[in-house]
């Protein structure tokens, strides 16, 4: 029999809520920055940078001997920008195409990072596995005092990163949009195309680092690319795409976390899986809808008159 004097354990504990909030913040921060990667067809570069920041993180550990976020952030951002530079330089001078250049750059930097990481692990309390897969479940045990409230350190950093992302995106919306759509024309207008690109790469690196403690450097890729790619399937407008990507990021983080609780499995893994489910589901629905619309317009074209072409094929 259930003892009525013991209150039933709530479905979600306080720790669960803090963890979920952290996951949501990571997902939205990465998802918003990732939208621009999707728009610029640079999703692979996001992948590359999130792998390549590893030596930057490890280097910061080795140099400072601590797990402070600031040195890691600096190290990783430097390496992230270096990746963008190296890959474009290799693509230009090495007579290999961009994809191959990226493949070479990020796997070798990642490998270097793994080596440095295992060296660092001898000196610092550091588990290479936690860098790769993240430790979302441990987020609530490392808190900071924020206006008298104990909040998870990772969550505080991610919240800060999200605020900065949004401010920068609003301030430089025009520049981001013009340089993403038509960089050559934007350059003739006097916009700083190269600077915007570097800024975006730095933002990808910075967000990756801030999120990696929670979700790991590999799963962060899903958070970067999936919301933007999914939102893009549903809308042809930029601002709605950014809103929709944020909504998708929030919901995959929540659904993924709850599913992980239910199934008692890795939260980060479950969130990434949910992103994939969302993307594939959307792709299925959108393409089925498109096929339906096309066959409908074909049918009406047969029934009525030859129509001007309505879509580009």
């Amino acid at each position: 029999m259930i003892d009525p004097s013991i209150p039933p354990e709530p479905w979600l504990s306080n720790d669960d809520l803090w963890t979920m909030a952290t996951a949501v913040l990571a997902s939205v921060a990465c998802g918003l920055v990732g939208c621009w990667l999707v728009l610029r067809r640079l999703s692979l570069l996001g992948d590359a940078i999130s792998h390549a920041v590893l030596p930057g993180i490890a280097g910061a550990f080795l140099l400072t001997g601590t797990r402070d976020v600031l040195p890691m952030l600096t190290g990783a951002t430097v390496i992230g920008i270096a990746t963008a530079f190296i890959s474009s330089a290799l693509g230009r001078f090495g007579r290999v195409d961009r994809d191959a250049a990226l493949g070479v750059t990020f796997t070798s930097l990642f490998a270097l990072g793994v080596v440095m990481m295992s060296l660092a692990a001898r000196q610092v309390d550091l588990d290479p596995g936690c860098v790769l897969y993240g430790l979302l479940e441990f987020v609530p045990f490392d808190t900071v005092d924020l206006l008298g409230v104990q909040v998870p350190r990772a969550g505080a950093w991610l919240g800060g990163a999200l605020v900065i992302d949004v401010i920068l995106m609003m301030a430089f919306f025009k520049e981001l949009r013009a340089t993403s759509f038509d960089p050559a024309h934007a350059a003739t207008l006097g916009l700083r195309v190269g600077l915007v690109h570097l800024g975006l790469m730095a933002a990808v690196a910075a967000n990756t680092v801030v999120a990696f403690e929670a979700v790991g450097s590999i799963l962060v890729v899903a958070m970067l690319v999936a919301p933007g790619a999914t939102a893009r399937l549903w809308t042809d407008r930029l601002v709605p795409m950014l809103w929709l990507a944020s909504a998708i990021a929030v919901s995959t983080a929540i659904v993924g976390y709850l599913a992980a609780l239910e199934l008692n499995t890795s939260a980060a893994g479950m969130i990434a899986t949910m992103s994939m489910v969302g993307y594939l589901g959307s792709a299925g629905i959108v393409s089925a809808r498109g096929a339906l619309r096309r066959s409908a317009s074909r049918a009406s074209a047969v029934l009525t008159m030859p129509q001007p072409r309505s879509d580009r094929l």
Partner: protein
Amino acid sequence: MQEALALSGVSVAYRDELVLERIDAHIPVASMCAIVGPNGAGKSTLIKAALGLVPLVAGRVTVLGGTMAQRRAQVGYVPQRESVDWEFPISALDVVLMGSYGRLGLLGRPGRTERTQAMECLEQVGLVAMADRQISQLSGGQQQRIFLARALMQRAQLYLMDEPFAGVDAVTESAIMQVLDALRRRGCTIVAVHHDLSTVRECFDHVLLLNKRLIAAGPVATAFTGDAIHRTYGGRLTVLPDAAYESRTASAGD
């Protein structure tokens, strides 16, 4: 005569290969200049070199009596239609509004004034009805006119256009031509990469024949000769002006 665009000794290389060799050209203000030449002659590269989009190995570009950096606000650019991703989530009006980004400054954003101006530019190219369409829903000719409207939005003095007539039908071509004529009447200069040799005489008053080197340049009447065209295109001559139909059919055999 004042020069809208002056190139002196301009050379451009991709990797180790020279694609433009010591180009000297002077395009007067209020002229309409066609750049013609075979594929791979460096026509687009010449436009990009003038705009400062590709580095010069040697030479100097003077735009409206100053450097490109000084005159940026007075130069409009119409790139090749294929150079952008038309699936990009943006409306026709927003593309045209980009023409105002240069004068808005770092944190500025287009407001009501810019919107009104952009609608006027759309009206000039006959696409007001398409303002809210996503750009992938436009036909090739309409996309070309959107690029033209974006350049009009810049209110430039010199317009550099990379194949503004590529893949457009006759109606669109004459619509674009009318806009260009109106610009020239206002004293603007137009430099356009052009493919159709048969329309050079009727549409342009100046010409620049290019095949990695400058073959001939000047007013159409003096520079656009059968000999110069032959030297530009070499054996790959496909179309001749002056309705030289016999010689065209004769050369079509090889």
